[in-house]
Every structure is written in C-alpha cells, then in structure tokens.
C-alpha cells in the first residue's frame, strides 16, 4: 500500500532525495509503467481485503489452487489431465466455426451493402436490427430451434458476429474515396491490381475492426449459450461451479474467460487493427470532439 503514499502528493523530504534507492523506487512509481503496476497490485490487495470483510468471497490463493487442480488434475495429475483443456477445446472449436460462418456471411453482405445503394436501402435496416439483438436472445432462440447440441452455440456465435462484420465492411467499402477510384481508372490501374492496392488496402482496417468487435461480442455469446444448454465447454463448467455453490471454482473460470478475451483483444486483435489502419495519417489533435469513434464501435 506504500505505493500510493509516495506519489504526487507527498512533500519532498530530504530523506527521499538523499537515498538513491528510494529515489529510484519513487521515480519508478511515478512513471507510467509504475502506475500500471500499482493499479494491478492495488487491485489484488483490494480483493484480498474484501475476502477478510466478506468471507463468502474466495481469496486469490483459493482461486489459484482450484484452477491448478482444474488444469493438472491435482493429485491424479500423473494419470489424467484436469477438466480445463477439454472444456476450452470444445468451446474454442464452436467459437472458431461460428466465427468463420459469421465472418464470411458478414463480408459478403457488407460488400453488397457497401457497393450497391439499392441493397443498402433494402437490407441495411435488417442488419441494424440484428446489431441491436443481444447475444442471449440468440442463445435462447437457437436452443429452442435445435435443442441441446452443437448447433446452438455455433449459430449463436455466427448470428452475434455477423452484423458487426457486415456493418464495418460496408462502412469500409463506402469509405474508399471516389477520387482515388477515378484516378486509378485514369491512370489505367484496373482489375486485380486496383483491387489489391486500393480496395483491399482501404477495407482491411475496417474488416479487422469488425472482426475485433465480432470476436468480443460472440465470445460472450458462446459462453451464454453453453451456460444455458451446454453439456461441456467453458460456459458449462462455469455454471457447474456456480450451481454447486463452489465460488473459488466459479470465480476461477470467470477469470479464465476474461483473461482469454482480454489477451486476445490486446495482444492480437488491436494490433492487427492498428497495423491495417497504418496507412492512415495520424489524427491531428487540434480540437477534441466527442463521437470521434465510428458508430460501429458502440457494441
């Protein structure tokens, strides 16, 4: 907890300045990285403190212990693996197949809406309605349609992902400047070359942006679907511990699926998106206005 005391508000005492080790620690704590680390440490400290006040809240150690057993099989570790990998494998398989369906459908419909104004007038509203549907509705509907099985989670993911990809791709296609198109025609750049350097270059960033939101939203979708009708999978296992009133296991699984999507988003998706948008001029920060973000970013 000393982290906070040494920051901005403490008066500069001579003691702090005279001892170089303290000075270095102080400099680190006040730096950007130090701030990030203090936030993480403070969070865990607050969690630990909470377990002292509310005994029903499992402590970090409990959660780590049970997740270790879930991963390795605990005492039976040498004989069999834990539950963790099987459930994650099942969920990731559904997630991947569903995403592939939603992604392909979204790109096709998005390209259609983006290129043809007739198609846009006809189906844009339908896509917006799909965008407004929460994932749990798809989880319920697909369960009622197909019963318990692989179809419900896969289709929940596909339905949840589809409108996000479609909206973003349509926006990307429409964002390609007509000037550039005219110029490429005038200079005789057509066909595959034009598609590769103009269309693909312009749309790629939007495709990745759409993929990113679609992946975040449909991760929630697959978990919900498994929660309500799964026989296995991450959502099912989370519910298993929840129904058993065993909160360390429950919290451990919740943390595991949060860590999964946050890591995927931060380490892969955001980077892909930034890379694909690299050609854009950096935003000049003259005057900040709200709603700079594209409407599709509001999940």
């Amino acid at each position: 907890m000393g982290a906070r005391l040494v920051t901005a508000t403490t008066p500069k005492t001579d003691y702090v300045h005279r001892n170089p080790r303290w000075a270095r620690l102080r400099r680190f704590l006040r730096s950007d990285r130090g701030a990030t680390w203090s936030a993480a440490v403070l969070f865990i400290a607050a969690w630990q403190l909470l377990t002292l006040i509310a005994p029903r809240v499992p402590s970090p150690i409990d959660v780590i212990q049970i997740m270790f057993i879930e991963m390795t099989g605990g005492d039976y570790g040498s004989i069999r693996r834990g539950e963790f990998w099987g459930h994650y494998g099942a969920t990731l398989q559904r997630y991947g197949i569903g995403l592939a369906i939603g992604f392909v459908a979204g790109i096709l419909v998005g390209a259609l809406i983006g290129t043809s104004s007739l198609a846009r007038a006809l189906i844009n509203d339908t896509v917006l309605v799909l965008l407004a549907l929460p994932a749990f509705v798809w989880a319920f509907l697909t369960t009622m349609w197909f019963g318990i099985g692989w179809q419900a989670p896969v289709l929940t993911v596909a339905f949840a992902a589809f409108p996000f990809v479609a909206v973003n791709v349509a926006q990307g296609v429409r964002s390609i400047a007509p000037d550039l198109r005219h110029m490429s025609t005038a200079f005789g750049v057509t066909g595959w070359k034009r598609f590769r350097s103009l269309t693909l270059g312009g749309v790629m960033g939007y495709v990745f942006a759409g993929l990113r939101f679609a992946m975040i939203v449909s991760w929630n979708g697959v978990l919900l679907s498994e929660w309500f009708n799964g026989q296995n999978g991450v959502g099912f296992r989370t519910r298993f511990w929840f129904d058993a009133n065993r909160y360390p296991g429950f919290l451990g699984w919740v943390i595991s699926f949060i860590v999964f999507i946050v890591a995927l988003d931060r380490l892969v998706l955001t980077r892909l998106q930034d890379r694909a948008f690299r050609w854009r001029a950096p935003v000049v920060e003259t005057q900040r206005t709200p709603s700079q973000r594209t409407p599709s970013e509001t999940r």
Partner: protein
Amino acid sequence: MRGTAAGLRRRRYLALVVGWAGFVAIWWLLALWIGSDARLPSPVRVLREVGYIFGGNPNIATDEGGVFWPNFSSSVLRVILGFATGVLFGTPLGFLMGRRRYWRSFLRSPVLIAGSIPGLTYAVMVLVVFGISNIGPILAIGLISMPYIAINVAEGVMGVDKGLVDMSTAFGRSENQIFRSVLVPSVLPFIFAGIRLSFSLAWKVGQLTEVFGSSRGIGFQIRRNFQLFNMPGVIAWVGLFIAFMLLLERFVLVRLERRLFRWRQWERDS
C-alpha cells in the same frame, strides 16, 4: 431520370418500405413452410402475442393482463438509475484521468480491460453478490457505462480551451467559478457522448442481468417465455426490446444531445 432531392428521398423511402415488406414476407413464407408456432410463429401470431402482452390473454383465466407496463417501466428505471451511477463514478475518474498524467496511466489498463469483459461476467457476479434484486441490473449498467464515460470525460477535460481558463483567471474568477462556468459546460457534451456510445451495450447487459437475477423487466420476461417454451412470446418480447432500444437511441438520445449542445459550433460543423 432527374436526381432531384425530393425524388431521391421518395426513392429512398420506397426502398425502405420494400425492404421491410420483403423482410416480413420472407419471415411469413418461412413460417408457413415450417408450419409450427413452436419453431417459427407467423408475424400475425407474434402480433397477437404483443396484444396479449399489452392487454392480457383472454384464453388464460389467471392472466392478470397488461404485463407490459410494470416490466417495461422497471427496465427503463433501471437503465436510468444505472447510467446515473455510471456518470456519478465515471465523471470523477475522467476528471482525474484528464488532469493528471499519473492517473491516466494508472487507470488506462483497468478501463481498457473493462471494455472487453463479457457481459455474462457482470450479470453473474451481480447475481452472486446481490441475489435477485433491483441493485443488480443498476450496478451492472453503471459498471458497463463507467469506462466509456470516464474516457470521454478525460478527452473533454484535456480538450478544455486553455485560453478560456487563463482569461478567467486573469479576470479574477475563483476556482469554483471557473469549474462551474468553464469546465462543467465544456465537459457535459463528452459525458453525453459516453452515454450514447455505451447505451446499446449497457441496455443489453442490463437485460442480461434481468435474465439471470430478476423478477421483473423485459429480460426476465424473455427468459420466462423461453422456459415456458413459448416461442411467440420470446419473439414478441424481443421485438419490443429492439423497438424500444432503437427508438430511444435514435430519437430521444440523439435529439436531446443535438438540442442541449446546439451552442457548440463543432456539432454543426461535423
């Protein structure tokens, strides 16, 4: 073909009507083909269900009739209170992030992480902590909207016209007066933008919380009809859910924002 503005608008309306008519027609044909209300009820069947929701089902003796308003009003009240919670806690965080570099990097990761946490987490955690209650959905909506509001407020605070603050200081205005007459009006549109950006997500997670732990609300009704295997009921409630969300987003929020902040030049420019 002359591309007059009125002609263009007429064509666009026509296409919209055709689009919606096509949507309903395809739905209807599919429903006729499948031929089972439990799989895909026809639009007429769903409309009748909407009638039951508003006026009660005469075929069921115990149906008290008109379940729409109690559920609807409790959902709306939770959304309003949830956003109030989000603004209450998000605004100070945003001010901190906007004014101090240290707090900006301190709160950056938590805020970014909060943006990609699955909604299921909020719904279930809130159920564990509060049980079936009113506080759950309100807190979930507050937690969802808070990072968006904080980020926007931080942007707003960083964008406050320094010249205005310097001038006010030069003319001997007190800190308090500067805060009230310069900072707050400059930041208000950003709070609003945060609400608008997070509205659809917060509304969805609010309903999800009602699915898990509530005895009232639109989300609760969707789940009840799911458990009764009443497909027309599920679709009717989902339709009402979407209609309300789009109406509120398009007409109330956007218009209110435009009206409240008419004095801001950039609103008209963009």
